[in-house]
């Protein structure tokens, strides 16, 4: 980031949420880089940016789509890069139909199931039709969504049956990706940006000029985002829009370029790499699905075809090595490496499906590990009510957080909905160890693993999760020791024999060594693997997470490397260890031109040394090191061997950067703007209001506010968005118990513009009650010009900002308060199963909220007034006949009770 010439921070608040990372932005700015912050609020990031552009929450695809349109129509794209390194020239299946033709839908949508059949989106096959995903007919979008397949691509693109694509290097064929892209974004104009985002043509011009002027051979632009992009019903598409723009401008794989995911937790990257996620096995191998992955062969073929390009073609080696790591000698070629020991998915099993299953009394037991769902999950009431249905609950944390004490002092106890004596849940609270009381590795947001040494032993009965789960595993295995039930074999055959210290606890380095993997046979037997390319599918290697192979190369904990400053290399490679293969910038082959020369001296990074016959430079080349720039191997070779000298995207099935995604996404091959699940604004781009493939939970305890065009939109007229503050951490478990942090931000508050304050009679430092169809909460009021009312389709849209750190209940918290997440509904992105918590609809009134039953009555009264039902917002396809782009006459509905009446909320605008 420090090498960027322009930094666009959008969908994130870097100075507040990553202050120390922000030093690199400060440094780039001091060197002359332009820093632009696009955000609904003027934040501490905006304060030190060159420019703040206020945007309506959830409209980012319109803005970035318009920049793409600007880049294409003004011929500002990086021709050489785009032609050589992206799929711009690739032809798409002739049956593909764009949103242009289908009122905002792509071809293949099934309104019955709410899923796309994605087969028409595929690349054209020279032999006719499209190039399928491997393993037979294309996996239906429904199945992909159910297993959150989008997230399975955390280390590379989805698979293709083969990589023999048709290309038109002139980019003129209407079936080329480039032409499709051009047509798709033609309607994303500056006028549309003004109408939907509330951004003036002038501000749009500033952004578009800054990114295009600072891209090319000699300059690079970087994007940074966070949950402002991911937490939407089509969040993955927000990021895809930025990816398309960055590929068009040649800003991927180069120093100072890229799209940085600014992740919010110490090892949240690690938690996806080695996932505690329902849909993944370590290293982004998918969890097997019933019916589709019944045999090991079906499974590995669908993960990566031998005929596709790049390293995913060796998925079988990664999978076998994982199974060998888990079941050791018991995993043999004869029993398909114990593949049948793995449980199968037949539908999504994410947090919110689990919540619903708890409410249905299907889930009996729940482990909550350093997490605070009573405060941190969307629709908090639903999450707490769900826990009250459990038979048993285990909470492991440092403090008595709200998720441990809701049965005693939660909001539902206060409102009278639950009585402590009636709750049958057995609760175990186990004190956890802090980060200094255990050794282990965190993976930070740039894929860097860093080892923490243990400073002291955990005090009292505190215990690390490593020690706890090891012990739990030992006890479970001991209790089953005499079992002959086949279902217990996977537990009994599990490799669970780590070297122990004096207290009987496992050595964390031995776990890291297992993750890294080792040779099992031959003269290297027992030695650690040094790279994932050493993994074999014949059972001669084991390794728990292929992308981490190398972290324990030579038997040395590479994550613990701590050469001051990372050593002399510009990539600072002697500090920690980055996956994969210790590469610091991914796809860095793209930092050189097709001939292998740096694009410019200023932006040189990796280049081809013709004399030595290899790639050299400041980083580990992310490419076969001896593959010459112009080599053209036979595509039939498959795998890494099939990569041509100009295929920098080595984890993509065709070696190219994807402007258009022929597979892998379930809600469209190109990002398309839809409105949030609940929005007072009509989608003026297409008749389709919401993302048709979104995951909905139409339930009485998860009602949505009417959207534009529906009766009652004026009852919840304002947009609210949630976020973090520098002074607190997520749901507060690690900050609200700390005096020094609590005093800095002691109370829950809401941020409103002076205009909204005047409209609703809100007073700075007074109280306000915010009401959504799920809940009503109270907050102190901060009236500030940092909140800007936006003009959307000719009407004023007010946005309300709500930090989400506080919660009700908990023991010994220094500060408490109502939880913003209680206001949120649960509707998910079908690619990732992540909830939309960055945009919702609400009302706001001065004063504190009522207590007890009166609080429930208030929420009900609003629901009734808006005539909200489970149908509201949960209709998949918007009736095209309802499309009204122009604002209707201002006389439509009567002003809402309590409103001053001078803001006529049109039904469709």
């Amino acid at each position, binding site marked *: 980031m420090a090498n960027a010439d322009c930094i666009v921070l959008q969908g994130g608040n870097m100075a507040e949420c990553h202050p120390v*990372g922000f030093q690199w932005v400060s440094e780039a700015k001091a060197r002359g880089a332009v820093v632009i912050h696009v955000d609904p609020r003027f934040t501490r990031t905006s304060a030190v940016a060159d420019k703040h552009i206020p945007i309506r929450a959830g409209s980012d695809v319109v803005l970035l789509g318009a920049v793409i349109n600007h880049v294409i129509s003004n011929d500002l794209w990086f021709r050489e890069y785009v032609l050589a390194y992206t799929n711009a020239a690739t032809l798409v299946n002739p049956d593909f139909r764009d949103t242009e033709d289908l009122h905002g839908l792509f071809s293949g949508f099934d309104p019955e199931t709410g899923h796309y059949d994605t087969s028409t989106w595929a690349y054209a096959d020279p032999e006719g039709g499209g190039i399928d995903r491997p393993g037979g007919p294309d996996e239906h979008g429904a199945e992909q969504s159910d297993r959150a397949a989008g997230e399975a691509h955390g280390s590379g693109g989805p698979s293709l049956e083969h990589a023999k694509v048709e290309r038109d290097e002139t980019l003129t064929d209407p079936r080329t990706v480039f032409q499709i892209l051009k047509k798709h974004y033609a309607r994303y104009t500056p006028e549309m940006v003004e109408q939907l985002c509330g951004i003036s043509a002038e501000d749009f011009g500033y952004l578009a000029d800054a990114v295009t002027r600072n891209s090319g051979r000699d300059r690079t632009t970087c994007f940074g985002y966070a949950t402002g992009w991911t937490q939407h019903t089509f969040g993955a598409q927000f990021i895809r829009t930025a990816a398309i723009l960055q590929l068009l401008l040649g800003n991927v794989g180069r120093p100072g370029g890229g799209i940085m995911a600014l992740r919010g937790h110490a090892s949240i990257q690690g938690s996806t790499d080695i996932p505690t996620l329902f849909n993944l096995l370590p290293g982004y191998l998918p969890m097997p699905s019933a019916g589709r992955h019944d045999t090991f062969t079906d499974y590995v073929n669908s993960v990566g075809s031998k005929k596709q390009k790049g390293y995913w073609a060796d998925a079988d080696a990664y999978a076998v090595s994982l199974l060998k790591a888990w079941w050791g000698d018991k995993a043999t070629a004869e029993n398909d490496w114990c593949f049948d020991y793995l*449980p199968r998915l*037949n539908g999504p099993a994410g947090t919110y499906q689990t919540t619903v299953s708890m409410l249905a009394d299907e*889930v*009996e037991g*729940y482990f909550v590990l350093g997490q605070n769902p009573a405060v941190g999950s969307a629709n908090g009431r639903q999450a707490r009510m769900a826990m009250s249905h459990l038979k048993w609950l285990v909470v492991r944390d440092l403090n008595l957080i709200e998720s441990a004490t809701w049965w005693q002092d939660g909001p539902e106890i206060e409102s009278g909905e639950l009585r402590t004596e009636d709750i049958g849940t057995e609760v*175990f609270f186990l004190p956890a160890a802090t980060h200094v009381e255990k050794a282990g590795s965190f993976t930070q947001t740039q894929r860097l693993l860093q080892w923490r040494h243990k400073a002291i032993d955990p005090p009292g009965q505190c215990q690390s999760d490593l020690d706890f789960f090891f012990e739990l595993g030992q006890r479970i295995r001991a209790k089953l020791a005499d079992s002959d039930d086949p*279902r217990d074999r996977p537990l009994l055959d599990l490799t669970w024999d780590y070297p122990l210290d004096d207290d009987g606890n496992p050595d964390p380095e031995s776990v890291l060594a297992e993750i890294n993997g080792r040779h099992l046979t031959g003269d290297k037997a027992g030695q650690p693997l040094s790279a994932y390319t050493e993994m074999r599918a014949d059972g001669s290697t084991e390794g728990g997470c292929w992308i981490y192979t190398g972290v324990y190369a030579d038997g040395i904990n590479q994550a613990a490397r701590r050469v001051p400053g990372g050593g002399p290399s510009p990539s600072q490679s002697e500090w920690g260890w980055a996956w994969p293969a210790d590469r610091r910038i991914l796809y860095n082959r793209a930092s050189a031109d097709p001939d292998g020369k740096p694009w410019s001296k200023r932006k040189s990074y990796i280049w081809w040394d013709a004399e030595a016959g290899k790639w050299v430079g400041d980083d580990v080349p992310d490419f076969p090191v001896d593959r010459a720039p112009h080599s053209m191997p036979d595509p039939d070779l498959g795998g890494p061997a099939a990569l041509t000298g100009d295929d920098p995207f080595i984890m993509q099935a065709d070696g190219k950067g994807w402007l258009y995604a022929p597979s892998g996404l379930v809600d469209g091959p190109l990002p398309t703007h839809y409105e949030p699940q609940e929005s007072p604004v009509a989608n003026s781009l297409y008749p389709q209001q919401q993302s048709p493939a979104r995951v909905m939970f139409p339930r009485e305890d998860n009602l949505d506010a009417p959207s534009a065009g529906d009766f009652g939109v004026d009852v919840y007229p304002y947009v609210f968005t949630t976020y973090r503050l520098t002074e607190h951490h997520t749901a507060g478990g690690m900050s609200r118990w700390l005096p020094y942090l609590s005093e800095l931000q002691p109370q829950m508050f809401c941020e409103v513009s002076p205009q909204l304050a005047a409209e609703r009679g809100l007073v700075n430092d007074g109280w306000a009650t915010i009401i959504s169809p799920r809940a009503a909460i109270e907050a102190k009021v901060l009236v500030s010009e940092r909140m800007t009312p936006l003009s959307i389709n000719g009407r004023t849209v007010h946005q309300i900002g709500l930090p989400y750190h506080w919660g009700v209940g908990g023991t010994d918290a220094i500060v408490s308060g109502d939880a913003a997440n209680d206001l949120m509904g649960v509707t998910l992105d079908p690619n990732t199963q992540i909830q939309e918590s960055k945009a919702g609809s609400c009302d706001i009134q001065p004063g504190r909220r009522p207590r007890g039953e009166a609080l429930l009555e208030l929420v009900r009264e609003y629901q009734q007034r808006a005539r909200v039902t489970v149908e509201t917002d949960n209709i998949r396809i918007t009736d095209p006949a309802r499309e009204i782009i122009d604002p209707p006459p201002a006389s439509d509905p009567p002003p809402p009770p309590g409103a001053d009446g001078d803001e006529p909320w049109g039904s469709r605008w």
Partner: protein
Amino acid sequence: MARRSFLQWPVLRQFRSGDVLGRGPAVTSPHTRALEPRTATADRVVQSICPYCAVGCGQKVYVSGEKVVQIEGDADSPISRGRLCPKGSASEQLVNAPGRQYQVRYRPPHGTQWQSLDRDTAIDMIADRFLETRRRTWQDTDESGSPLRRTWGVASLGGATLDNEENYLIKKLFTAAGAVQIENQARI
């Protein structure tokens, strides 16, 4: 306290040092003269990583008498160059928080108060509950006969301050047990 030597009398020191107004060396107390930072007197310094956001700032943990006495930035880290945000700076207080829990607590069904429980018993009880639920909620195949081999009765939600090694053991154990609803902050 040791007997104050005559020469240490402030008034005399004022005149000896020339600091007659008593604004400098003449008025320093023995405590002041003996000041040493606790970072210099710590028994050991351990390199760690900040547990809050994902920037991954380096930390130095100072330990005296088996207690953490100070946590500050690690200047050697190329990621953070010794700097920490307010949360990172408060890490010592996270470890020594006034409300931190050191004992296992147990709430029986319908109970109104916490009870105490020793850790061994608690883990044993949890293992029993785990196996009971698993037995009760086992799903061997789906309706079309494809294998499922799982329990729908046990779920987990992990924070993202878990180590890679911890996540690995959790995933390994739960998967082997057939529990699939294993989730994490990463999706929230």
